[in-house]
């Protein structure tokens, strides 16, 4: 009954099978965790990249200043 509440009406005539749904619930959970980790990992990567970029930019600016001299 719970599944019927969750699944749109047109799907309700088909027995989805507890086994298949539970497997997908796990896949859903795992992929959500992987998704979250990926998201945070990218944020971390972006943070360091940004720092590196700033450093590089600063170095480039330094070079430019040197050239000017």
């Amino acid at each position, binding site marked *: 009954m719970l599944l019927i509440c969750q699944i749109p009406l047109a*799907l309700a005539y088909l027995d989805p099978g507890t086994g298949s749904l539970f497997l997908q619930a796990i896949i*859903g959970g795992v992929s959500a965790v992987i998704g979250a980790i990926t998201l945070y990992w990218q944020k971390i990567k972006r943070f360091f990249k940004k720092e590196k970029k700033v450093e590089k930019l600063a170095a480039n600016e330094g070079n430019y200043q040197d050239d000017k001299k």
Partner: protein
Amino acid sequence: MIRNSGSFRDPSGFVFSEQGKIYRALNDQGLNQYNDLKESGLLAKLHHKKWLVDSTFIDKSQFKLLANETKAVLAHQTIPFISYPFEWPFALLKKATLFYLDISIYALQFNMSLNDASAYNIQFIGAKPIYIDVLSFQKYQKGQYWTGHKQFCEQFLIPLLFKSKLNLSANAIYRGNLEGISREFLIKSLPFFYRFSWPMLMHIYLPEYFQKKYAKKESQLIKKQIKKNQLSKDAYLGMLKGLKRWIEKLSPTKSKHSLWLNYEINNSYDEISKKEKQQFITTFIQSTKPKLLFDLGCNQGQYANVALNADCKMVVGFDNCFDTLDKAVEMSEKKALPFLPLYSDLTNPSPNLGWQEKERDGFHKRVNGNALIALAIIHHLRLSKNIPLAQIVAWLVSIAPYGVIEFVGKKSSVMEKMLSFREDVFSDYNQTNFEKLLKNLATIKNKCILSSDDRTLYWYQRL
């Protein structure tokens, strides 16, 4: 108006026929689903790709017997011959499986999904699959599960695995179960080491384990888990694409000793006889111009090809050798022929099946009323299956009003071989008797004695 007896499960509408044309009645829910499909842009794309049967709205007032709940009627393209998954050889089932996955993946691009995974919703025109149920589509809802996964496994994946992993064609088991083959059945047939195969674990072992563990317990935990988690669109797509990659690699384990696989090359008659046979079939087809021809004992489709080159619109072939049928599918696909090779043991053809024995039509109901060719099969029915010749002739003539039957005499090398280790108790099997039996039921329009190997072709017209 004849309501299709297999169309009763769908809460959104039903299929009916009138004067040979196919229609679909839509109720409120069905009309909404159809409009969603149209508005998503998917309907037009699927029609363009010829992946979905054509459908157009038609004035519903012309059908007087429709109930008030019918809000609209669609006229559908007619499929020349309805076949069922348990009649498909491996090559066709694999095509249908990949086609289902392709449609599902494509639909998600339009924010639509398939609400079931019934193999009966796929039909073939030649060896090309087409989806026939417009009400299987509905709006994709964020986080939804793939509810058709279990059905997909039972109706598509598991029969394929039986052939590719165990070299067993599961068509008879499929026919017996109709709704597909259970995971439990496959698991009990598989060696233990398949538990270590990742896709097997994912789609067969784990779901079966969870099913058994939680189905009866009504556990609040599992309900919570299913309710709490969602399947992201990426994960949904990942499942479909992963299955596609896996299934693309599945191939049938070839039988080393298939008797019929090389029949077209290693048969017992010479090139001249082959040409005579081809000419006879060509003349028969050009004179009768059948829209649909049934080739009983079609082998790899050599004579189906001859018939199509003459003037035949479509050929449906039947054979009981799976390896040969896979070759026939390959040929049909390669040459893009309207030739559909199907599995059937003619002495045990598909009966009417399913709910009230009306859900799926049997062989005779679907085959009746067209032309046939039955080349070199009656000696097998007589000698291998012990069917009296009178019954064989009556059966063939009852199936098709006109056709070609090849009679293979006892002096033929193949008959000599068949009779070499057994007593000849088939006194009714002789050419004189065959002609007499045929003449009782039909006119012999033409006859050709082949130059070699004691074979004669008969073109008959039912009385």
